[in-house]
């Protein structure tokens, strides 16, 4: 699972109101190169929750993203430095082994072989 997907996940245990973002506990992170596509990044940027991305990236060992969300002009600039970092964080880092932790209840969802198991127990539905 990559950070683009992590940014879309929330914990849906019954009664939880604040299940986003899930905290990442990473054991193994794998990097895989993906073709750079500025149009795609611009489209996704609007949907991304910046703080969740920065924290997620940090917990996977990538510290290069700016703390504060850059404004739109930076996405259009000729200098691609920012877009390249966004690209790497969103699409090239894979959480292979580890866990996702609900920010409200502390419930841990295991991630094995890159797949988060978000199934709930009967008493959580």
């Amino acid at each position: 699972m990559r950070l683009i997907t992590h940014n879309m996940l929330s914990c849906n245990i019954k009664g939880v109101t604040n299940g986003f973002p899930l905290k990442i506990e990473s054991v193994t992170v794998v990097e895989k190169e993906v073709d750079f596509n500025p149009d795609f990044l611009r489209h996704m940027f609007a949907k991304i929750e910046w703080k969740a991305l920065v924290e997620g990236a940090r917990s996977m060992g990538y510290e290069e993203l700016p703390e504060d969300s850059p404004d739109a002009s930076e996405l259009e600039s000729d200098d691609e430095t920012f877009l390249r970092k966004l690209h790497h964080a969103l699409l090239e880092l894979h959480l292979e082994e580890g866990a996702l932790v609900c920010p409200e209840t502390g419930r841990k969802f295991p991630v094995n072989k890159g797949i988060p198991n978000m199934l709930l127990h009967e008493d959580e539905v």
Partner: protein
Amino acid sequence: MSSRIAEIRLVSSHREVYEPCDDSFALVDALLADRINLIEHKPKICMEIGCGSGYVITSLILLLKNELPGVHYLATDTNPIAARVTQETLQAHGVEADVICTDIASVLEKRLAGSVDVMVVNPPYVPTPEDEVGMEGIASAWAGGENGRRVIDRMLPVVDVLLSEKGWFYLVTLTSNCPLEICLVMRKKGYASRIVVQRSTDEENLLILKFWRVKDEESLDKETSSESFVSQFSRYLSSFMEKRWR
């Protein structure tokens, strides 16, 4: 260039995971038939619910990847082994999607709402006793309860939430699922529909339906009163009845 789909010899398998069958092939044929439209549609996020072996999502990626490089693909299944098998199938074809083990798409509903441009679903659609639905293991791959609609009916509102303004939805159904009724349910949510592929095998009569959002009531009336809907269905039903009587 010829378009590629997943190769059966590269599709991973496990005895607890649904193997690609007539329904899977019919769904991929529907995507193939609609490929040019899909490319013009320029989706950014595509998703499959109930990915099983990964045959369908892998085929979708292969169909689009040369023309559309920047697309994010997601796949879910309740069966953890299916999620793993899908991951293996993707890897064997050298393509990338994020796979999540969850019920329908419940962990994505909040943050992914209104973002999915293409959704594909081959649900558990076989009419079975109610208590067979959602059991552990392979039975949950097909068991659909009364009229095979138990899981389908839970999926429709979720799909409606997730689809973007321009979102398209491909769904595998059987005649016994009362597809016309499914279209009416979706129509109330503002979707037009048509049959993309219809196929009768010895055991089942498969219909692959496609849904898309229509902006206002008036054009919905136009779309659904024309060729695309009722007439298509009545034609289908009469040809089906004919076959039965013969």
